[in-house]
């Protein structure tokens, strides 16, 4: 029998998450509403209420509490999930660190949305990318099917590495777009995702304290172990992607490499921009122009080896970031530069920032980026802004 195929269901991006959480047999869900992630928990609350889901749903009063409740459930040894966005994720910051340090494999869906001030509810990846050092596995997704599939895989990778995992998707372009999505059968998901059975958990039969004070050497060692597990998580993620593909007939490479065999210029991007870029890249190829694309699906652990394979042979790399680290520029561009710094004849890296706060990134935007990279031997600036009004360009 070939890979499993199922009829598609047209659902919103947020609901793709809810179905994934249901199929993953999540035991405890705690969440707080925020646009544009509210749909995730609304459907989950409904599923819990009508019996489609046997999870405990905790309607907490804040995102800090949402993640604290997930931590409590995870410390008992059960699967826990929350969803949020932007200010909600920022509000969780302390708990993000705590969950990773406590080795709690909570899974979180984050809808990438701009942070205030000023208020803006549209797409921008800075919310989750600015949490990149908290010890969470991070995935970025291009479409709703990838979101659903990735959530299920995230549980497996998180539980395998005892690290929490975040699955990110673009506000509105994904969260509120209805697309045909294949919802996998429960028994197949059960085959892919076994129950979570941690070696240590809160239990009155085996009383232990979790998270108590450690001295400097112990702390250093625990941090080194997190780093080790995080690096190993890439292998687990690759295995999960492969096995998921074998069962469900869909696979999402950690770094997707499109036409990279002979590409002189490689565009690097993530999220829904990758979908737009795909068509532009194909246009170039049709004209015989050697342009390729690398899509970053797994961002933490950063897949250095895959990025080197993807970009090592190119002459120029153009990174399009829908995020910004003020004073440093596009966040993915920094990581790409770091990945390439020790290879001989490293490609020249062009860093573009645009699409923040929900600004459209159209095929023309991508063409502008590619054309600039083709035209110039080196970038004129460390960071080049795309889509800025003329008067603010200096």
């Amino acid at each position, binding site marked *: 029998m070939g890979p499993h195929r199922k009829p598609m269901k047209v659902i919103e991006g947020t609901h793709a998450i809810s179905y994934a959480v249901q199929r993953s047999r999540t035991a*405890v869900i705690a969440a707080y509403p925020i646009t544009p992630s509210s749909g995730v928990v609304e459907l989950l609350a409904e599923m819990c209420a009508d019996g489609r889901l046997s999870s405990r749903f905790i309607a*907490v009063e804040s995102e800090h509490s949402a993640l*604290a409740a997930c931590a409590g459930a995870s410390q008992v040894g059960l699967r826990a999930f929350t969803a949020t966005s932007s200010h909600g994720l920022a509000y969780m910051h302390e708990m993000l660190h705590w969950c990773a340090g406590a080795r709690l494999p909570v899974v979180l869906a984050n809808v990438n949305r701009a942070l205030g001030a000023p208020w803006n509810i549209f797409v921008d990846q800075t919310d989750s990318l600015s949490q990149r050092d908290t010890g969470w596995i991070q995935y970025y997704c291009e479409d709703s099917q990838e979101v659903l599939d990735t959530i299920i895989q995230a549980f497996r990778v998180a539980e395998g590495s005892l690290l929490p995992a975040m699955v990110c998707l673009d506000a509105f372009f994904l969260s509120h777009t209805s697309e045909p999505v294949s919802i996998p059968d429960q028994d197949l998901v059960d085959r892919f995702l076994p129950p979570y059975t941690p070696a240590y958990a809160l239990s*009155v039969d*085996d009383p232990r*304290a979790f998270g108590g004070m450690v001295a400097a050497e112990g702390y250093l060692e625990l941090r080194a172990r997190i780093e080790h597990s995080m690096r190993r998580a890439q292998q687990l993620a690759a295995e999960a992607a492969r096995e998921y593909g074998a069962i469900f007939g869909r696979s999402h490479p950690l770094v997707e490499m499109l036409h990279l065999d002979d590409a002189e210029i490689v565009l690097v991007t993530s999220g829904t921009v990758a979908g737009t870029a795909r068509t532009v890249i194909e246009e170039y190829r049709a004209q015989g122009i050697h342009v390729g694309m690398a899509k970053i699906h797994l961002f933490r652990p950063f897949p250095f080896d895959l990025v080197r394979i993807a970009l090592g042979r190119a002459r120029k790399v153009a990174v399009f970031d829908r995020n910004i680290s003020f004073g440093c520029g596009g966040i993915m561009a920094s990581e790409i530069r770091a990945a390439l710094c020790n290879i001989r004849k490293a490609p020249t890296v062009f860093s573009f920032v645009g699409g923040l706060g929900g600004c459209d990134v159209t095929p023309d935007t991508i063409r502008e980026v590619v054309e600039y990279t083709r035209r110039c031997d080196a970038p004129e600036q460390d960071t080049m802004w795309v889509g800025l009004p003329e008067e603010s360009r200096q």
Partner: protein
Amino acid sequence: MQNVNFSIPSDEVMAAGHLGCAGCGAALAMRLALKALGRRTILVVPACCWSVIDGPAPYSAAGVPLMHTPFASAAAAASGVRAALDFKGDTETTVCAWAGDGGTFDIGIQALSAAAERNENILYICYDNEAYMNTGVQRSSATPLGAWTTTTPRAHLKDRPKKDLAQIMVAHEVPYVATATVAYPDDLVAKLQRAAQIRGTRFVHLLAPCPPGWKIPSEDAMKVARLAVATRVFPLVEVEPGRPWRLTVVPPEADLEEYLRAQGRFRALLDDPAALARVRAAIGERWQRITRLAHD
């Protein structure tokens, strides 16, 4: 021989070798609480002295499972533990959030209020030493009027009354609210045993003397805590919905100054007769209020 009926269980759940200071009320509070609650208890402890008292990993004095959690999150983390146990079908284990006054009155009140409003099936015990002791005696909203702390120095003593958290919790219409102190262990144990039998959010406000923070000799800790009750500074009550408040222990009244003089943190207050009069009046008014609630 005569049969003596001890109301306090003899099982010592908490181990010796904890890291509390000599005379620490919080350490004794835990020892008594675990006698009352028994071994089928899971503790959730936010940042506070007890994050240290329990001992450095891998040691743990508590003797029951204990989850450390960030400062503001005790009630939320406890809700998650509860949800997970319920999911597993274990509705019997007591989930006990154990937090200081800072983690309860201040940074943790949002999560606590929310858990109480949801009527989470948890027992929340606030051991109150009336300041942030872990970080070196800074004021909290549980610090009493007129007290010295490092952030309410001599020249600017605490000029606002202690937040009335028991009242706030009663206003949430939870099934059980009580105050207790280590100086009346029978009362404390009886209240926690009662609380353990009730479902829903139970809140116990437990006065725990802190010798270094209150500037008292460690051997005076029990005496001072007893005086807190006798001077009506800390009335011992029990509140269940639909019933008048119950004053559980009302010792013969002692003079407020005896309580204040026993503690270095009130030295500056005692030098200021006007401020002292204000403190006396505030305590009197609150006592009136509580006795009225108890006689309704």
